Structures are given as structure tokens and as C-alpha cells.
């Protein structure tokens, strides 16, 4: 195709959008709804994922040692645990003194003088331990069993239920979000293809004239496809831009109004969400616009 013919197709595609204002508006509106839903959904899922991940990192496995275990042995156990980089994200050593200070902070906060009597005789003398934070709570059980086998380890405390709930929740969230995304895309493709089909039936006359004059299939298709791509572009750029501002406002609002939540929920920054959402949304929008118009016009081109 010559450049001049291509430019003509681009111009015709843009003019067609204007000529069929109602139809174009309907298509853009459909697209906006789909991308908007997709965007909102993505923002929610990404944040939930984020919260779960944070919660996972807060789950600790605590390792206590046999009485009389030397510092070298304790250090060796620590090294063995640290070596499991695929499961372990952080290992923290808490000495008996630190454990006591922490305990006092937690339970004698209001009257520290009660705790002063124990200063010479640490009641938690044997409570030096490792707090281990995990990358992946699903593997907690496996890790606990391994550490229990190590020499000098007296016992391993873990909260298997929290770990199970979190990892199950994570998996469910994954499947659920995948399902919704597939459903949304299917709906979008269906709606766009329907709207394009309506547009084509309105312009059957024009298409048949083009074919009789001797237009190639490519030439007949090009304006429709360009139209679809432009509608896809507008229909995805617009909702994502709107969402960007809404998201910032919502995050700000929640953090201001429900300050007590900030300890439990921390939102992902808008930049991080939209760094993914913008390219993916545009790709989906343009992709649906292109495929929807291309496939539909192909089906209707048998003149």
C-alpha cells in the first residue's frame, strides 16, 4: 500500500469516528467500562496482594536452644538457617537480655518499677532465640521440620494456622483475579465486536461501493481497523488517567479518615500500580480495538 493510500485510510478512519458519533461513543463507552473495571480490579488485587505479602513477612518462626548450648553452636545454627535463602528472608538473633527488655516493654509498660526487681536475675535466661522471617509462608512447615532436626535446637515455635490461612488466601486471590480478568476480557471482546458489527452493517452500502469500484480487501479494512485502534486507545487511556487521580484521592482519603488502618493496610504507591496498569491497559485496549474490528470486518467482507 502506498503512503498516500495509507494516509487516506487514516483520515477516513478518523472521519468515520466522527461520522458515526453515536456508534463511536458507544464503543468508547464500552471500552471505558471494561478498562475501568479491569483497572479498579487490578488496583484492588495488587493492594490485597501487597497486604498479604506484608503479613507474610510479619510471620516469624522462633527457634529456642537446648540449655547449655554454646554461642558457637548458636551461631552455627544461625548460619545454617540463613543459608536457606529461598525460604528465609531475614534471621534475627534475640539474646536473653533483649528478650527481657522486650518483655518488660510489653507487660510492665505502665509500672516499670515492678520489673526492676528482676534486674540481677533474668527470668528469661534461657530465652535467647532466632526470629526467622519467611519469603513464602507456604514453605513454613517444611522449614520448621528441618530446623527441629538441627543439633542444639530445643524447640521451634510457629503459627501454622496463620501461615496456612495466608498462603491459601494468596492462592485463592490469584485464581479469583485470573478468573475475573479473563471474564472481563471476554466481555470486552464480545461487546466491541458487537459494536463494530453494528457499525459495519450501517456502512454495508459504503463497503459494497468500495468493492465494486475495485478496492482491495486491505483498503476496505484499513479505515475500520484504524477506527478500532483509535477507539481502543481513547477507551483505555481515558479510564486509566481518571483512575490514576481517583486512586490517589482514595488512598489519601482512607489514610486520613481511617488512620488506625495504616498499621494493618499499607497502599501501594500510585506510580507502582499505574506503571503496570498503563502499559497493560493500553495494550489491552488497542489489542481489543484492533482484533475486534479486524476479525469482524473480515467476517463481513464477502462481497
Amino acid at each position: 500500500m502506498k503512503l498516500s493510500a495509507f494516509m487516506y485510510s487514516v483520515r477516513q478512519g478518523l472521519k468515520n469516528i466522527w461520522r458515526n458519533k453515536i456508534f463511536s461513543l458507544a464503543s468508547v463507552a464500552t471500552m471505558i467500562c471494561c478498562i475501568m473495571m479491569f483497572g479498579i480490579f487490578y488496583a484492588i488485587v495488587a493492594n490485597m496482594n501487597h497486604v498479604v505479602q506484608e503479613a507474610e513477612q510479619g510471620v516469624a518462626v522462633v527457634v529456642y536452644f537446648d540449655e547449655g548450648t554454646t554461642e558457637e553452636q548458636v551461631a552455627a545454627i544461625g548460619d545454617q538457617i540463613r543459608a536457606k535463602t529461598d525460604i528465609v528472608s531475614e534471621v534475627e538473633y534475640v539474646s536473653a537480655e533483649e528478650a527481657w527488655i522486650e518483655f518488660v516493654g510489653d507487660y510492665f509498660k505502665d509500672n516499670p518499677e515492678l520489673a526492676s526487681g528482676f534486674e540481677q536475675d533474668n527470668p528469661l535466661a534461657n530465652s535467647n532465640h532466632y526470629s526467622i522471617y519467611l519469603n513464602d509462608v507456604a514453605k513454613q512447615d517444611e522449614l520448621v521440620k528441618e530446623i527441629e532436626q538441627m543439633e542444639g535446637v530445643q524447640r521451634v515455635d510457629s503459627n501454622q494456622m496463620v501461615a496456612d490461612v495466608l498462603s491459601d488466601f494468596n492462592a485463592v486471590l490469584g485464581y479469583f483475579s485470573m478468573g475475573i480478568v479473563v471474564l472481563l476480557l471476554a466481555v470486552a471482546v464480545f461487546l466491541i465486536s458487537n459494536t463494530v458489527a453494528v457499525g459495519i452493517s450501517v456502512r454495508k452500502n459504503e463497503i459494497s461501493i468500495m468493492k465494486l469500484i475495485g478496492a482491495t480487501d486491505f483498503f476496505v479494512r484499513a479505515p475500520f481497523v484504524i477506527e478500532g485502534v483509535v477507539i481502543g486507545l481513547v477507551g483505555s487511556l481515558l479510564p486509566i488517567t481518571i483512575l490514576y487521580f481517583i486512586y490517589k484521592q482514595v488512598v489519601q482519603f482512607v489514610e486520613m479518615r481511617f488512620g488506625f488502618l495504616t498499621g494493618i493496610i499499607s497502599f501501594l504507591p500510585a506510580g507502582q500500580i499505574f506503571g503496570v496498569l498503563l502499559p497493560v491497559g493500553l495494550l489491552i485496549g488497542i489489542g481489543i480495538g484492533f482484533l475486534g474490528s479486524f476479525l469482524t470486518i473480515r467476517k463481513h467482507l464477502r462481497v
Partner: protein
Amino acid sequence: MIRMEHVSKAYTTGNPAVNDITLEINQGEFVFIIGNSGAGKTTLFKLLLKELEPTSGTITVAGQDLGAMKRREIPKFRRNIGCVFQDFRLLQDRNLYDNIAFAQYVIEENPRVIKRAVPAALASVGLAEKYKALPSELSGGEQQRVALARALVNKPQLLMADEPTGNLDPQNAWEIMKLLEKINEDGTTVLVVTHNREIVDAMKKRVIMLEEGKIVSDVSEGGYSHEA
């Protein structure tokens, strides 16, 4: 220009619409095809454009065997043929200039050529000054003249008109016919499907008459009066 040999076209039910037609039309001829509704005129027209495939027989148009033509070769083939229809088939949403320029863009003509050719084509049908008008602002006769200009702007070897005067009053019908005659005198082969008795009688051109899908008469300088 056109050669049909034993061409038949049958639809799924009923008698064949075109039944064993053999005819030859030479370059530069002016030919009327007449007959009642259902005689097979429109089917013949569509066969020549390769809008329909014949059930049997061979069709050659402008030196090309339509049966051997691939689908992707059809657009190039149709560029040799200008078409005019009873219902004009103009694009209602654009002005006359764009309607005719459209035909040139379709064949991927150079924009500089288009800028010259479109006013010339409009002038040749006497509508040069109305280039900005929309088809709906024109009379039927004027619309058909625009359709003619569009058919001619690509300089086809063959012009085919399907009932071009069917929607026009006698005076406008005559104007269209005069234009067709002039186009023919400039060297284009013209094929007109019609049942306008007066015009056919008056113009004294070759007349092919169809009846139930068969050629029942083929007379040079004929007319409806040759009817049996």
C-alpha cells in the same frame, strides 16, 4: 470486450436465472439489455462483475477469464469497469467532491492526480460548481450524473449501467442517456440494462432481449418494437 459462452447461473431453487447464454460484445459498442423483471438481466450484470459465479460456462471480460481469476485479483479487474445503478449508490455523508475522490483513492491514485481529475469528472457531467453539495441536496438526475462521474473518473474500458434511468423522470433520463452516448463516442464500451421502452426505441443501438434467462433476440439498431 465481453465474451460469454454457454453461461448458466442457477440458484438453489427454481429455474436458472441465466440459461445457456452465448454472446459477444466488442470494444466500443453501445448495447442495451432488455427484458421483463426476472428475465435475468441483473444476474447477467453480476456475473460480468464477478459478484456471482456462473454454474457453468465461461465468461471473459476485458481479456480476462473470470473463471480462472483468483479472489485477490478481483479488485484489479473491477477497476476496468465503471458501474452505475438505479439507486445511484452515492455516499450520503460526503459531498460530491469526496464521493468522486473516493473512487480514485480506492484505486490508490496519486493525490496530485486526484486533485485534477475530480473537478474534470464533475465538469464532464455538468456539475463542476456543485462540488461542495451533499447528494441529498441534489435532484435524482443530478445524483445519477454524479454516479456517472464517479464511474468514469478512473477511465474504465467498460461502463455498465443497471437501470440507470429507473428512478428518473423522462427529461432527466434523456440527459443521462445523452451522457452515456457521449461516453461511448469517446471510446468506452457501454452496456445498459433497462426496460425503458422509449429510450431503447429512440436510440437505435444494439438490443439484446432476455426472457426467462435466455437471449430471445439480438438486433443491431433494434428497439422494443422488435418484441415478438
